[in-house]
């Protein structure tokens, strides 16, 4: 494999790791809120979180490009903060990936929290655990299969991301050229040998991830939503 291919693989793994960490931090509180709230906004928030599941990635990518551009809301904010605009940067891609994989983090964690039910938390409260303490020492450990599923799905989904990166990235080697856009370039340029090598790697990786999930599920832990 060529140095460019290794560079793209390295970048993809970095992006996937950063996205996964960020999504666990954002997704866990959001999932807890969705699992426990009685707010009338619950349905709307839930639908908004699920949007990336059904929207074409190019739509997401296009809106992100416009929003983060010099006239967009996000773009104006980042410019005011002296950060410049985010498209064509790793940070820009990271934000795009977080939005794109949000449901893959929130939904499994939310289902895990819902499966616990109210009782363990009530018991913790009667034992005088403060809400945050109960959350950390009761809810989180009980929901670990959901957290694990979310971690695996977010990582894999980011590795397989294409449309958003294509719209936002600018295909810059080492900064925004990931494996999927690299494959696309090879195919369009009719360099089928290089495209095959990377594609086969991608298929192998994705299969291994899904196999791992299925094996965990067979062992009886409820990890899939």
């Amino acid at each position: 494999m060529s140095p460019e291919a290794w560079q793209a693989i390295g970048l993809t793994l970095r992006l996937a790791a950063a996205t996964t960490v960020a999504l666990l931090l954002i997704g866990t509180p959001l999932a807890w809120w969705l699992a426990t709230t009685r707010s009338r906004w619950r349905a709307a928030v839930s639908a908004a979180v699920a949007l990336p599941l059904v929207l074409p990635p190019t739509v997401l990518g296009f809106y992100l490009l416009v929003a983060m551009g010099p006239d967009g809301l996000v773009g104006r904010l980042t410019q005011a903060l002296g950060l410049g605009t985010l498209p064509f940067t790793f940070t820009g891609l990271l934000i795009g990936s977080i939005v794109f994989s949000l449901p893959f983090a929130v939904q499994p964690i939310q289902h895990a929290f819902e499966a616990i039910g109210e009782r363990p938390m009530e018991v913790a409260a009667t034992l005088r655990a403060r809400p945050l303490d109960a959350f950390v020492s009761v809810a989180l450990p009980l929901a670990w299969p959901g957290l694990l599923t979310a971690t695996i799905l977010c990582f894999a989904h980011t590795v397989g991301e294409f449309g958003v990166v294509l719209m936002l990235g600018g295909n810059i080697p080492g900064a925004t050229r990931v494996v999927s856009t690299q494959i696309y370039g090879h195919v369009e340029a009719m360099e089928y040998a290089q495209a095959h090598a990377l594609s086969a790697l991608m298929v192998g990786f994705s299969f291994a991830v899904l196999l791992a999930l299925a094996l965990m599920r067979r062992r009886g832990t409820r990890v899939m939503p």
Partner: protein
Amino acid sequence: MPLRPHDRPRHAKPVARLRRRVGLGVLALPLLAWAAAAGAAQATQGADVTVAVAANFAAPMKRIAQAFERASGHRVVAAYASTGKLYAQIAQGAPFQVLLAADAKTPERLQAEGRAVSGTRFTYATGRLALWSRQTGGVDAQGAVLRSDRVSRLAIADPKLAPYGAAAMQVLQRLGLETALTPRLVIGESIAQAWQFTATGNAPLGFVALSQVMQDGALARGSAWVVPAELHDAIRQDAVLLRAGKDHEAAIALLRFLRSDEARRLIRDFGYEP
């Protein structure tokens, strides 16, 4: 109206029934969509000529198709994509009768492979490259801005995939700016994306097709330097009759129409040289 407790059972039933009914309705949706799509497909079956068009030629093609339909009574069904994708589709047996490519290489290759009718290839348009900014005054008439430090990012189409991208790289090379500007390039997968990066302001400058920023013979907005044709190899866009269009009257008529004065005028209005 507030509910009293004993109202609930009586009230819940119709709601449940309604829910069930809505549920069944949702199940029927894909069926309805399919039926509608089938109807729509039937309506387009009278189409006369199916033509694959390079994405950069989409705007002029729409005008040309209208004029052709008026003049000939035939109907045009056009599919737009990058030339690389169109090639892959044609090689896999796509039912296109005519190809209007963004280069000369692809029609030549299709002819060599026997997928196009030999002797039918001709240049229908020659593309011109423009350095464009969406801001007035963003680009001067000589392109000197390229040597200034105002170029934080420069959008181009992927030189490996798009003829306009390859031409843009030639311009940078001939101006001796390749090393200086390569780190600031943002690369669109097509000339359409290079335009998009520039049009959204994410890149202050971009090498685009003149046809993307021209309207009725004038610059639609922003400022541009029309790159002198000597600075890059000619961007020849060739058309060819595909095997599926062999002896097909409407397909041959469309190719003939592309060389007519009317079509040439339209093509020039969009910033191409016919």
